[in-house]
């Protein structure tokens, strides 16, 4: 709190931000950006949760580093009172414009708020992952219905954090202009011009190396599966629960189309469908009575009403209790989830029909329909994995390029 200085005194470059603090800062920015960009499309849930876990890990590290870290990284060094913040802000418009080597009072409050909101964001995300997706550290701790409140918390804090980051950036820019020093550059280089009395910190290279290696190892552990995946054995980042199977169901339904899992429609739908077996979407099934009884028992035991998976819960929730849909593709949730897919895609030879779930959903047969388990065949959008593979498969040509 004493490290203020007047610009007239003699200065020297001093290391202010140690390497762990800088690594923390830029990794936090990166993971927040990744999480933001991947929050909408379910296909990238694995990338989103990867970013989220890293984000949480970084914040936890920062809490520790705020106690045992180097001088300017310690919370105690920048715990200013509200009165000091006001005085600082007033000073900006007056003559008493003070320059702080570490965090200034307003900046310090922004840091504490960013860390606090960040923790709420990450932890609420864990609850959403555990509640909606049944994955992660808190898998199944809250029910599907309870998870709604955590999702709202998660979304609101994400926007709040984005706003805070905006304020933080605004502060950095105005401070840089007022004192004619590049604060963004300082967060890269770590050093600032400071007077003789301001202490310099050690870079703490080992701690930073540990953070970066952990991060690299986590990247490999999370996404390595994509590199070894093949067409026949695709990589599924999330494995859903083992849902009960039925050979009778598989045989009876699977001989004409994918044996849609009973968790995709409520029991009343299956009941009506089997009652109308002589007019099954225009065709007569001629199923034997014994078979019908077995099919019905299985369908009722594992129908959408039992909310065994996220898709079961969401399908069931989107069907009004007064309705008994027979077509899975007419259920509101299904329609909403597929509205972006245009007719040209549906007509592709590799897809052909809206009932061909397995064309895109790699776990359609199991009935789990995990978020990160879908890939639209024939999509020529940029595929980072294919690109990375093409590089790894041709190391010789790459090296030649480098040598020249």
């Amino acid at each position, binding site marked *: 709190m004493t490290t203020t200085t007047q610009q007239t005194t003699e200065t020297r470059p001093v290391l202010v931000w140690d390497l762990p603090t800088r690594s923390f800062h830029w990794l936090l920015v990166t993971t927040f950006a990744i999480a933001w960009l991947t929050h909408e499309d379910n296909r990238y849930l694995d990338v989103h949760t990867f970013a989220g876990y890293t984000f949480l890990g970084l914040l936890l590290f920062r809490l520790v580093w705020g106690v045992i870290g180097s001088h300017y990284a310690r919370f105690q060094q920048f715990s200013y009172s509200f009165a000091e913040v006001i005085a600082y802000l007033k000073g900006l418009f007056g003559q008493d414009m003070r320059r702080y080597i570490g965090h200034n009072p307003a900046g310090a409050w922004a840091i504490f708020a960013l860390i606090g909101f960040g923790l709420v964001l990450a932890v609420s995300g864990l609850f959403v992952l555990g509640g909606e997706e049944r994955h992660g550290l808190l898998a199944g701790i809250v029910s599907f219905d309870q998870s709604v409140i955590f999702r709202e918390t998660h979304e609101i804090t994400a926007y709040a954090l984005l706003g805070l980051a905006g304020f933080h950036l605004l502060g950095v820019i105005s401070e840089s202009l007022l004192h004619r020093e590049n604060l963004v550059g300082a967060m890269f280089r770590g050093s600032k011009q400071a007077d003789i009395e301001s202490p310099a910190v050690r870079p703490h290279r080992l701690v930073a190396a540990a953070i970066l290696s952990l991060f690299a190892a986590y990247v490999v552990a999370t996404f390595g599966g994509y590199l070894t995946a093949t067409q026949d054995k695709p990589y599924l980042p999330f494995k859903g629960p083992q849902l009960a199977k039925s050979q009778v169901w598989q045989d009876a339904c699977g*001989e*004409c*189309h*994918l044996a849609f899992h009973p968790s995709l429609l409520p029991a009343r739908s299956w009941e009506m469908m089997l009652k109308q077996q002589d007019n099954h*979407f*225009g*065709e*007569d*099934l*001629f199923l034997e009575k014994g078979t019908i009884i077995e099919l019905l028992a299985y369908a009722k035991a594992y129908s959408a009403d039992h909310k065994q998976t996220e898709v079961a819960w969401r399908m069931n929730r989107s069907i009004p209790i007064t309705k008994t849909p027979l077509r899975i593709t007419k259920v509101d949730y299904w329609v909403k989830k597929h509205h972006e897919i245009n007719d040209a895609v549906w007509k592709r030879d590799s897809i*052909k*029909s809206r*009932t*061909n779930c397995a064309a895109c959903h790699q776990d359609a047969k199991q009935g789990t329909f995990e978020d990160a388990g879908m890939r639209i065949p024939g999509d020529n959008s940029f595929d980072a994995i294919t690109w990375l593979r093409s590089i790894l498969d041709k190391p010789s040509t790459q090296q030649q390029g480098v040598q020249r």
Partner: protein
Amino acid sequence: MKIGFDKLTAVLIFMVLASQAQAGAVDTLQQQYTAAGAGPFSAAAGEQRWKETHLDAKSGKQRSCQTCHTKDLTKSGKHARTGKVIDPMAPSANTERFTQVRDIKKWFKRNCKWVLGRECTAQEKGDFLEYLKGQ
């Protein structure tokens, strides 16, 4: 060695049983059709019926057995509506064909109705089997 021998025996027994079952299922059904007053069965008549097209009033489209099973019985077919792959019809390409009485009955019921708009007669079913079993 002993285990290997047991496995071999099991496979042999299974193959014998499977081939018997195939002959068995077709024979059993054709006997039933004969008992119902049909016969003798002709592969040529079966082939002709198999390739005939029928107009479906509802969809306005021509339908035949080949719509789904394709013109080559030794190749996989495709369900006209769902696109689901159908295993080859010819026993020479698919040893599981015509081994289960129950399956044959079910498919005759479903598919005759789809193509012809009615159930097949005992004579027609016998002819179909006569034609298909030799493929």
